[in-house]
């Protein structure tokens, strides 16, 4: 029957189209697998870096506050010694004056040393800024992967406006960002002495 043949032919055509569509979907899901996998790994890395920044900033701030507290206490002791020196000047007790001056000099020197230690601790800014740049670059990677995923479902040819904008932003940020992904304020994987001996052995 001619009607049956047409119906069969139409069903066959529909099945072929359906099969092609399913094949396309399978390919699309395969293309999604990598960006999803990479994004899934990068999110915890970025979170870890941000946690580390929080932890290390807090530790450095505490370290500096402790030192400032000690410096302030010493300043008060210095002022006390100055008062005693004034009193001794009136009484003419030279030995006591000399003792007070010695104490003042010692405390001033300790404060000077502590000021350098505060400056040492301020290096946390450089280390945490590298950690932030690392976290930012991981998030930019994730953004890029998400655009790739969107692109899979986007029927338009070429990059979407969003994707172009994201790529431009990533490229711009990548040019100015220079960081060590392993920068850490407290955890030194290598002993400085080992590095010194490596360079000493090399000759100067």
């Amino acid at each position, binding site marked *: 029957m001619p009607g049956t043949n047409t119906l069969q032919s139409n069903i066959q055509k529909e099945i072929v189209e359906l099969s092609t569509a399913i094949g396309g979907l399978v390919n699309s899901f395969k293309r999604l697998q990598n960006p999803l996998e990479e994004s899934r790994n990068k999110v915890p890395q970025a979170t870890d870096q941000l946690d580390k920044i929080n932890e290390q900033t807090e530790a450095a701030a505490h370290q500096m506050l402790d030192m400032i507290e000690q410096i302030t206490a010493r300043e008060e002791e210095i002022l006390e010694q100055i008062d005693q020196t004034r009193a001794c000047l009136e009484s003419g007790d030279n030995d006591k004056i000399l003792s007070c001056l010695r104490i003042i000099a010692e405390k001033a020197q300790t404060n000077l040393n502590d000021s350098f230690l505060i400056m040492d601790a301020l290096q946390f800014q450089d280390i945490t800024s590298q950690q932030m740049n690392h976290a930012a670059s991981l998030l930019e990677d994730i953004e890029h992967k998400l655009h790739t995923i969107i692109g899979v479902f986007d029927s338009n040819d070429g990059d979407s406006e969003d994707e172009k904008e994201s790529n431009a932003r990533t490229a711009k940020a990548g040019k100015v960002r220079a960081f060590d992904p*392993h*920068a850490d304020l407290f955890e030194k994987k290598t002993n*400085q002495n080992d*590095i010194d001996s490596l360079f000493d052995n090399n000759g100067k």
Partner: protein
Amino acid sequence: MSQTILVVDDSPTVVKFVSFSLKNRGFNVLTACDGMDAIEKMSNTEDDIDLVITDLNMPNLDGYGLIETIRQNEKYSSMPIIILSSEQAEEDREKGKKAGATSYLIKPFKSDKLLSEVKKFL
């Protein structure tokens, strides 16, 4: 006349901290924010530079590139160069040594350690 040290780092905090420590000990300090800036400063300054302290990870031209460029200049072929970096991997140290660095300090560092390293060479 005081000796001149060029400090190269893209972190203004590190530049300020290192400069302060060195100036406090009587050194004359020049600063640069990356390798390219350092080369420009070295070319334009009338002072003789006695030592360079450089970071590794920097935009435009990194520390390795800077050291290699400095070593190509006969005038500075034996000038001490200290790397300051948070990079701790063995390959970074080897790469730094190969590029021509004289010494390598891991960040964060104590200002005492930096000064003793500088005094080793000057």
